[in-house]
């Protein structure tokens, strides 16, 4: 668990863009893992943990979408109601020309590119590339077939490489 928690936290932050909420999500995922799967073989824990984590991240994102729609329906904004991490997140690439010029942080560029991917592609890339899960483990974590994992991952890699083409030099020198 110790090996995984920091990486899980980093993935949660990338998806949720709120450190406190990311910590809550990781803790909740650990607790749920223990409650439901403590009796399962330890080899299964990692993909199961990531399945729970991905679900919890989706829950947070869904809640935000609902909250945002409800608030917009009543003519308000999320920031009026409470702290909104999405609104405070760095602007997407292209919104700020100065940032484009000064962007030297390849990881930030990668994170932003990831947010533009469809959810399943982002999950496949995160689990396969960042976490190093194999295809079978990723399929467990994503609750889908191994074939789907391969498709999502391949599309994600190609799309990310296209999006990060202009960061190619920086990525190469990282």
């Amino acid at each position: 668990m110790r090996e995984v928690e920091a990486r899980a936290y980093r993935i949660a932050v990338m998806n949720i863009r709120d450190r406190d909420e990311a910590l809550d999500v990781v803790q909740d995922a650990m607790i749920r893992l223990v409650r439901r799967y403590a009796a399962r073989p330890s080899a299964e824990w990692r993909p199961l943990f990531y399945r729970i984590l991905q679900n919890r991240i989706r829950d947070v994102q869904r809640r935000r979408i609902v909250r945002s729609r409800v608030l917009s329906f009543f003519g308000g904004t999320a920031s009026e109601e409470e702290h909104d991490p999405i609104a405070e997140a760095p602007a997407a690439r292209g919104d700020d020309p100065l940032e484009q010029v000064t962007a030297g942080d390849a990881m930030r560029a990668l994170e932003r590119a990831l947010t533009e991917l469809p959810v399943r592609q982002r999950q496949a890339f995160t689990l396969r590339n960042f976490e190093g899960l194999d295809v079978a483990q990723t399929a467990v974590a994503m609750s889908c077939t191994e074939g789907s994992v391969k498709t999502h991952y391949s599309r994600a890699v190609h799309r990310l490489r296209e999006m990060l083409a202009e960061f190619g030099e920086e990525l190469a020198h990282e």
Partner: protein
Amino acid sequence: MSDENDLKEFERTTKRLFDDSVAEIDAATRSRLTQARHRALDEVKTQRADGWRWTLVPAGTLAATALVGWFIIVNPPPPPGLQSDSLSDLEILLAEEDLEMLDEEIDFYGWLEEQPEFTNADDGIG
């Protein structure tokens, strides 16, 4: 082949970027993560404690049964007619109505009631 190599290199680079970003997580956050892990492990302990609590229920029942058995052996039941109310109550409490049997024989009881020797029973005596 070159494109494939480029893709592999791209994958290696993104992996390295992520690993570096994990390594840069500050000590305060790592400490909070450790606390979160401990809270999760506490859940395991609580679960196990709950498990023991559940095993105590049948254990308690067994102990109570043994105690009752011992009490009956040490204090044998009184002769018929002098049985204590408490033992009768226990028997009643433990008894289950055999409703299925009642249902099967209800036709018989209906037939029995219609028989002349039963309906005119008082006539013979008086």
